[in-house]
């Protein structure tokens, strides 16, 4: 395929839908949480706002215990990531470690805020006319308002937008195809706030300098398409199209969605912007609209509280920092047979040890599962190489080979077989008849590869330093030798010159004598 063809296909994103390799058709169990409309829960007694909400370093707190904060006031900051704001007006009770839902572990630094009940906002600074505003100003507003990807990865939106601007984006894809079972917060948001999503997509389009917007939704989301299409009926909305995609897990993955919409694959090690595209979650677009038009920072999000372990599953518009237990209480509490609490969906979600864990920007779903939903702890059997994992792998990897290579520490092979392309969707894990925790091994393998890379980086740097030093010493030695030789030559020359001077003085003194002969002797003395 030529670059021109590829470009053409990329620009036609959503015109035809395509398939990606593998994947699973899962029971989606979404309806149970879509019965009630989305409401804000009553204000909790205490909000726990984690300073670490995504991969990387945690933010620096701006506040100390005892400080009074206003709703929407910035309380945490770190340069490359999204800012953190207070979800309420109230008093900072403490800045301390608390259980959080984060891949890194159980505890993380949090700002504990006790609401004063006034709900007094900080002075909001919206962008006055986004249609004429400088895109850089829009991006800056996203950064100041702490907007981050709400699909789960929490990648700072301003960084993605700035990168997109630099790389000549033509299409913005809004991802509304939440493919994990149970999760319905994006569907509810698209039903209830389609206008805000469309507005956000137009702002993002302007910030990115993109030509078109494709909003991808699942084919089973009944009213959503109508709501979005209706919202997108405006003069400037002609570039927005709503596309239904077939529901196969993990279609909501950025790379899989792009493949479905264009038939193209994001190059290995590359980003969607290599194809001229940027992917954003629909909820992120809504947050952008709030940030730019109203100046509101990201302090609340839609979240699904669901599963057979919850009495009345539903969706909330919850403040960041609300504890899970507060939301579960409003849902009527747990059922008697609840056995596990998970943040996210059943395929990729991670379990939490306590429901004191607070909602963060990444929390799209609180899933309470019963013993029946989850498996009895399974005996892990040896791999029988049945190949089911390879059949379902959306990255067309060979998970069973990778598993073997990682266990045996064959890191060159692991790299060659493309571990880095693994998206950790869990399809292989789910179908494995031997119940091998493949994704766990892949995470471990990725960690080892990173470690190796930094180690070879470090030793490489050390070797470089050593070689540079050796080269420098050698050069200095040569230079010294050179100088020495030069000086010797100069001394000799000097001696010669002095001889010459002496000779000419002699010649001048012995007038009438044979000059050539004198020169001859001089030449002789020079030679010796």
């Amino acid at each position: 395929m030529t670059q021109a063809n590829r470009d053409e296909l990329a620009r036609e994103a959503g015109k035809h839908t395509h398939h990606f390799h593998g994947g699973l058709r899962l029971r989606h169990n979404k309806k149970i949480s879509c019965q009630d409309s989305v409401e804000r829960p009553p204000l909790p007694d205490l909000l726990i706002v984690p300073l670490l909400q995504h991969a990387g370093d945690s933010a620096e707190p701006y506040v100390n215990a005892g400080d009074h904060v206003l709703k929407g006031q910035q309380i945490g900051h770190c340069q490359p990531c999204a800012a953190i704001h207070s979800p309420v007006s109230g008093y900072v009770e403490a800045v301390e470690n608390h259980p959080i839902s984060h891949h890194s572990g159980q505890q993380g630094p949090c700002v504990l805020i006790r609401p004063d009940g006034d709900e007094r906002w900080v002075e909001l600074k919206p962008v006055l006319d986004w249609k004429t505003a400088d895109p850089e100003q829009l991006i800056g507003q996203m950064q100041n308002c702490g907007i981050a990807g709400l699909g789960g990865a929490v990648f700072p939106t301003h960084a993605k937008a700035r990168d997109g601007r630099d790389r000549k984006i033509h299409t913005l894809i809004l991802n509304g195809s939440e493919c994990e079972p149970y999760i319905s917060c994006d569907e509810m948001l698209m039903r209830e706030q389609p206008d805000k999503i469309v507005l956000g997509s137009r702002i993002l389009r302007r910030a990115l300098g993109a030509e078109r917007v494709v909003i991808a939704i699942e084919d089973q989301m009944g009213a959503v398409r109508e709501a979005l299409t209706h919202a997108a009926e405006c003069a400037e909305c002609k570039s927005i199209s709503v596309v239904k995609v077939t529901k196969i897990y993990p279609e909501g993955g950025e790379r899989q969605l792009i493949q479905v919409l264009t038939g193209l694959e994001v190059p290995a090690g590359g980003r969607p912007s290599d194809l001229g595209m940027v992917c954003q979650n629909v909820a992120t677009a809504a947050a952008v609209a709030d940030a730019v038009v109203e100046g509101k920072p990201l302090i609340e999000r839609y979240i699904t509280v669901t599963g057979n372990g919850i009495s009345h599953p539903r969706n909330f518009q919850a403040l960041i920092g609300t504890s899970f237990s507060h939301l579960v209480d409003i849902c009527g509490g747990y059922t008697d047979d609840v056995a596990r609490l998970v943040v996210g969906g059943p395929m990729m979600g991670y379990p939490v040890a306590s429901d004191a864990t607070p909602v963060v920007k990444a929390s799209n779903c609180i899933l309470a599962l019963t013993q029946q939903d989850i498996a009895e702890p399974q005996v892990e059997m040896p791999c029988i190489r049945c190949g089911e994992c390879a059949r379902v792998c959306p990255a067309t990897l060979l998970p069973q080979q990778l598993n073997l290579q990682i266990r045996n520490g064959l890191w060159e092979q692991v790299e060659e077989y493309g571990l880095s392309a693994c998206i950790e969707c869990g399809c292989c894990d789910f179908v494995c008849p031997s119940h091998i925790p493949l994704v766990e091994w892949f995470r471990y393998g990725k960690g080892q590869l990173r470690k190796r890379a930094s180690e070879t980086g470090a030793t490489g740097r050390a070797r470089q330093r050593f070689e540079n030093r050796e080269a420098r010493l050698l050069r200095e030695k040569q230079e010294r030798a050179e100088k020495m030789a030069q000086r010797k030559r100069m001394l000799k020359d000097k001696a010669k010159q002095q001889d010459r001077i002496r000779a000419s003085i002699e010649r001048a003194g012995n007038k009438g004598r044979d000059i050539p002969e004198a020169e001859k002797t001089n030449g002789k003395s020079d030679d010796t």
Partner: protein
Amino acid sequence: MTRNFQTSGAPHMPPQTTVATVMLQVLLALVPGVLAYTWFFGPGILIQIMLATVFALIFESLMLRLRGRPLKPFINDYSAVLTAVLFALCIPPLAPWWISCIAMLFAIVFAKHLYGGLGQNVFNPAMVGYVVVLISFPQAMTAWLPPLALAEHGLGLLDSLFTIFSGRVPVEGGWDAITLATPLDTLKTGVESGRMVPEIRNSPIFGDYGGLGWEWVANWFALGGLFLLYKRVISWQVPLAVIGGVILLSLPFWLADPDSNPFPLQHVFSGALVLAAFFIATDPVSGCVSNKGRLIFGAGVAIITLVIRRWGGYPDGVAFAVLLMNMAAPLIDRYTRPRMYGE
């Protein structure tokens, strides 16, 4: 009130299947073929399956204990049972009892556990066991029975048991009275002695395509194979490559010289080819991983089988073909790694 929970890795859903389910599905798929076998050749095969299974389980438990592995999950995975049944389907129905014992010793102890147990064996254990006894005890391994329709003395269950355990045949005339060369054997010796294939095929031991009875057993095995394809326990690449390969490769020989080369479908319906195509060459452990690799693997089995049948010393060569391709599998895998996403 906060509450604490047990944690455990994703996915948080019960697994779709287990190793035992996979093995059981394969065993289930063998049932129609085994019943047809019994119908056409008498109950001897059932006794062989029982014998081989008992020996396989004994060696399996012994090795698990020696290796310090838990007994329960590995005995319950049915992999040893499957090895035993596949082996029993390859030997003459009245072969003496110790044949199973020796074959299972080599299959379970040597081919399986000494290579590291379930999932680690380089060679198909059933075929290792079969080839060991085929080479070591050629006489016992060629005492094949004719289909009951052609048999003067059809042995019942008790007579079969007596024969298998005593080595003597309870009818007048002994072994010679009840055994007959297989169709493939007849064909090979016939062609070697200069007779023409159509003439050889006039013998009543031949059916429409393969051997009388054999072709129907093959049909029922194929039916079981289709069930496995439907259940996605096996993929279509290996059976297609084996059967398609045999047809495609034997066709030019038959077209060039129909008098000394059998019709392609006769190749398919003779010997263990259908059984191998669906149940033996599809063994994932000793086979190839990628789809392209599986096609190559199957085609290799087809080629080697035909070469042995045509030029080799054995009338059927499927077992050797599978073992030789087992050796090649890692190399094939090396060169058929599928293209990764975005590569």
